[in-house]
């Protein structure tokens, strides 16, 4: 047999490499990443084109060129978050988890590797998509009153912030998939957290809602890429900390379930 004499053991880097190969080798990964880019760039371009022709997109009154460029962030978040969920829930729905955990029986390295590799992928796609959306938008809007430029204050930081938001949302998706072990469950939890819970805040008394809302994952995430902070919104730095807190919480839950439950 031709196994080389070098010591072959499971290491963190090797598990990460395996996770990257898992991701690369599924067609759905590429399709969904493409969709995320399409949403991110497409919605920005459409919003800008509408503004250019004088038809404000619904809800876009008073939008700046920058906010138009990032109009697609929420849609991209759904695509990237769902792909994050799938990355881990499909392990359970297909039975692949048994192969995975037989190879890495300590288990937790799989979660960290999945979260890290997918988090970086979602961040890169998010940041690149946001940059392209911005450049396309600024080209469309050049010469109008909403013209924007990459050298405007805070723009580069904001675009990176959008990437970080999408990357962390992807990690939360991965964690939800491991925690719930079901694609439908994971996607519901993700969509609920990022899209429905903010709407439910209206049901709370105003004082409560004002106190809680900025700390929701979606609002904390939005403050990561906002160019100017609205009333009561968190600063970008505070938003990052809060979003990291939510991500850590989801990962701890996932780690607990992964370590404790039978595969």
């Amino acid at each position, binding site marked *: 047999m031709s196994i080389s004499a070098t010591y072959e053991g499971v290491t963190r880097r090797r598990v990460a490499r395996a996770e990257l190969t898992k991701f690369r080798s599924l067609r759905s990964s590429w399709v969904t990443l493409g969709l995320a880019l399409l949403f991110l760039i497409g919605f920005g371009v459409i919003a800008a084109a509408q503004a250019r022709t004088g038809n404000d997109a619904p809800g876009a009154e008073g939008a700046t060129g920058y906010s138009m460029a990032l109009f697609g962030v929420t849609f991209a978040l759904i695509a990237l978050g769902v792909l994050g969920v799938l990355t881990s829930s499909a392990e359970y729905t297909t039975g692949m988890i048994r192969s995975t955990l037989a*190879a890495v029986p300590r288990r937790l390295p799989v979660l960290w590797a999945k979260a890290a590799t997918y988090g970086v992928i979602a961040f890169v796609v998010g940041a690149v998509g946001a940059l392209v959306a911005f450049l396309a938008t600024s080209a469309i809007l050049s010469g109008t009153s909403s013209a924007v430029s990459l050298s405007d204050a805070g723009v580069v930081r904001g675009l990176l912030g959008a990437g970080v938001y999408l990357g962390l949302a992807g990690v939360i998706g991965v964690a939800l998939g491991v925690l719930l072990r079901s694609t439908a469950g994971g996607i519901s939890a993700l969509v609920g957290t990022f899209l429905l819970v903010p709407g439910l805040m209206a049901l709370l008394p105003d004082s409560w809602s004002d106190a809680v809302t900025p700390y929701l994952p979606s609002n904390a995430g939005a403050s990561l890429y906002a160019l100017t902070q609205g009333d009561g919104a968190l600063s970008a730095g505070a938003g990052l900390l809060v979003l990291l807190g939510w991500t850590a919480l989801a990962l701890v839950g996932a780690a607990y379930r992964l370590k404790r439950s039978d595969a």
Partner: protein
Amino acid sequence: MIEARELTKAYGQKIAVDGLTFTVRPGAVTGFLGPNGAGKSTTMRMIVGLDRPTSGTVTVNGRRYADHPAPLREIGALLEAKAVHPGRTAYDHLMVLAHTHGISRHRVEEVIGQTGLDQVAHKRAGAFSLGMGQRLGIAAALLGDPATVMLDEPVNGLDPDGVLWIRNLLTKLAAEGRTVFLSSHLMSEMALVAEHLIVVGRGRVLADTTVRDLVREAGGDAVLVSTADPVRLRSLLAGPGVEITGRPGSEQLTVTGRTPREIGFTAAEHGIPIFELTRHEVSLEEAFMNLTHDAVEYAGRAA
């Protein structure tokens, strides 16, 4: 070497594995035999750490499976349930597992060749037939070139070609000196390949024996004799290590410890007429049924 000590697994109220203690010795094929629901798959999942024992321990080569730095090098397992993403090619599936241990691409190609997957290696596993899927599972089990290979009902549902292929593979693995631990609910399958047998029923060990001893205990080497003078023949055949039974007044004796040939000669020497002289064939299947009868009965009533 696999060592289980008082291994127990309960799923809620259901006790699937109930204090199993056994050792799978190196360098031999050990069959893990028991009716459906006996707890074989559960035991095998606990061996590779997929299920956590409720109590008791099981070790592979002296350590818990998860405590080995390179677990795939210690034991390769083909489990009962599917363990492949259908959207991934066989090659990519094996590469994923190889990466976790730093196993080379060359080795992946080698196990693909060994399991006859060359033609389909770049096809998605979801399109595989049952037999091809089984080969992929075996390729994964062999990937780390482990000294121990564990297979859970590997021939279940396979066509005759597939069954033959698995049987040859097992023989080859054993000839290479590997420890093979193989489960089945069919004695006939086991008898062909296993030397050692661990028989389980209702989550307990019913017998830890060899195929030969199991048959002997079930009366496999007895000879039936019908004769005109059972009393005289009986006294002529008696001796150390010989056991003879027969109902009074019956012309039939059951003899263990003498061959039909010896009995025939003795009878001829003394001019005793014989009407029947047959080896009493206890099939392995029968021996197994006797052993697991109670366990199956219980399962039938409990279900």
